[in-house]
């Protein structure tokens, strides 16, 4: 158990800046997920935390102690690699026992701890097997076993489920989460899969181009995205944006989209006239014949219980999640109603969300 803190950490490889000033705090016992597209710097951030890369600048603190310059071996953390990195010249028992052997534990103790760990992960029947013949899931369990066997301060996992097929990934998600609670560990977990992140995380940090875009609980990130990138990255399908020109004023409770006033959470800041984008999630869009905000249906995607209907308006495309029972005809003109308390207004140039009651309130609903 440990608190991990990154202070303004940056890493450059030659002229390429992989991580550009990251501040993160991972609390004791938290399951913290860093989520982002490939190349956003999340793996480099994790590797710096582990001590496998030296930051160009910034500080890394483990339980308040500055470990920035310490080698990986002196940090007492465990790292689970995407490709498992099991030693092919050792069997399962030797692989799991390896970290203890590194620290010169007595043989009897290694044996006991390995047995305990293997039982915890339900792989005790595989201990004498070579790792080469194991299935992906079992290899993953062995890799986890190697990480937890010495009860380190923290676990760092770099897309540990990325190499598994999707069905198994789902199962392992649950197991990982359960394991995390059972051994009461601090975990930093990296993924580019938002479903994995949403399902497991206590807190999520979304990274993009070497920076943290937003940190928060899965619900905060989903309901109150701070930037258009986050809004777009999270959710399937992602948030729809309606482009508009306006000069929002503090206290405004509506904004004109294509000349039609649309009700929205109370604005808490003034902005000069400029380009803005109104963001709305598909489940907050419904059809209302009376509405003056109109568009034309151009596509419908059937998903079982719901369907995703794409409507094109003068201000941009908008996706609506509707019950699959509702009859929708391509080409039909429809009126749109947007749920007022869940709309976000973004500066279309900087991508930042404008302050409104949605962000200030913090109420979930």
């Amino acid at each position, binding site marked *: 158990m440990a608190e991990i803190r990154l202070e303004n950490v940056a890493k450059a*490889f030659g002229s390429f800046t992989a991580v550009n000033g990251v501040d993160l705090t991972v609390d004791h016992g938290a399951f913290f997920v860093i989520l982002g597209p490939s190349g956003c710097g999340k793996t480099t951030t994790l590797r710096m935390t582990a*001590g*496998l890369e030296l930051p160009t600048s910034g500080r890394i603190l483990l339980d308040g102690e500055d470990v920035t310059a310490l080698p990986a071996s002196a940090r007492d953390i*465990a790292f689970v*690699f995407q*490709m498992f*990195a099991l030693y092919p010249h050792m069997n399962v028992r030797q692989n799991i026992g390896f*970290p203890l052997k590194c620290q010169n534990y007595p043989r009897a103790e290694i044996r006991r701890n390995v047995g305990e760990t293997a039982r915890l992960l339900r792989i005790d029947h595989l201990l004498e097997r070579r790792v080469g013949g194991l299935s992906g899931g079992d290899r993953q369990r062995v890799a986890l076993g190697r990480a937890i066997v010495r009860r380190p301060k923290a676990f760092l996992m770099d897309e540990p489920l990325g190499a598994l097929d999707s069905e198994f990934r789902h199962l392992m998600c649950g197991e990982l989460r359960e394991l995390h609670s059972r051994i009461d560990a601090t975990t930093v977990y990296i993924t580019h899969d938002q479903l994995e992140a949403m399902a497991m995380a206590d807190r999520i940090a979304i990274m993009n181009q070497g920076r943290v875009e937003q940190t928060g609980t899965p619900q905060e990130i989903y309901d109150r995205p701070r930037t258009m990138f986050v809004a777009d990255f999270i959710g399937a399908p992602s948030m729809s944006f309606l482009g508009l020109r306006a000069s929002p004023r503090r206290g405004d409770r509506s904004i004109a989209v294509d000349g039609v006033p649309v009700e929205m959470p109370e604005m808490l800041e003034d902005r000069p006239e400029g380009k803005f984008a109104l963001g709305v999630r598909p489940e907050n869009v419904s059809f209302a014949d009376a509405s003056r905000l109109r568009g034309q249906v151009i596509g419908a995607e059937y998903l079982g219980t719901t369907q995703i209907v794409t409507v094109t308006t003068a201000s941009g495309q908008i996706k609506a999640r509707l019950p699959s029972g509702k009859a929708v005809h391509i080409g039909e003109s429809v009126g749109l109603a947007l749920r007022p308390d869940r709309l976000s207004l973004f500066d279309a140039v900087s991508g930042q969300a404008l302050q409104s009651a949605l962000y200030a309130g913090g109420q979930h609903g």
Partner: protein
Amino acid sequence: MNLSVTAHSVAEPTARSKRIASFVVVIYALVTILPLVWIFLTGFKTPPDSIAYPPKILFEPSVEGYVNLFTTRSRQTPEFLESLPPPQTWYERLVRSRNMVIGGPSKVVPRFANSMIIAFGSTFLAVCFGTIAAYAFSRFRVPLADDLLFFILSTRMMPPIAVAVPIYLMFRNLGLTDTKLGMILLYTAVNVSLAVWLLKGFMDEIPREYEEAAMVDGYSRLRAFFKVVLPQATTGIAATAIFCLIFAWNEYAFAVLLTSGEAQTMPPFIPFIIGEGGQDWPAVAAATTLFFIPILLFTILLRRHLLRGITFGAVRK
């Protein structure tokens, strides 16, 4: 439809095409092995048999070649031979029957020892340096890495004889002429470029996660290198060692130039055997046969690694 049938027949050889393939392989093997068998047989012929025409396939085996190889002899008059006490050993009797007496052991044993020391010593050094350098090139951001690698490779680009004179002069000034140390250094220098390039390929194939996992688990980089990377690299190291050994074992030009006595290796020594007492082909063949043996054993010992090593980069990715 037609296309898929063609593709199928390409992918899976029929019994007949397999038979043809194995026939070709057997013929090729026979053709390549024939000179070796000939050398081996010639070693057990008597000198007259060895130069008989047409060549003798069936002959009475004799170890005269080996006796001649391991001894120096001198031809004597029959009167002198009469005056000597009768021969004590089987090989003395054999030499006496050719009107000669044994002067003493020949230089073949020390020359053979030189070859072993120089070839294995330089191979060991080249593989050690090569492994460390290849690991560095593979894992660290070495400044000017590409240029350095090209420089290392470029040392192999010119014919060695082009630098023969400067090397001869350098060796003379350093007092390395005709020393085992000098030859080990020279062959190490030549082989290290090959070793770096071969081993870098193997190191690149070993996922760096292996040693990173070991480092996170409490190993220093050095320990992770020895305990985790080296066991993974044995295949590549074995393959590289064989290539280096074959070069150092067979090298002739520099050995002729730089060694004459103390540090002379087998390749320049074998031609000398011809000169001693006429053209003694069985002795030459016997020397050549012995010369084969170490490399043959070494290759057989490492053959599993060698086969896997050569195809290593080809099959994955």
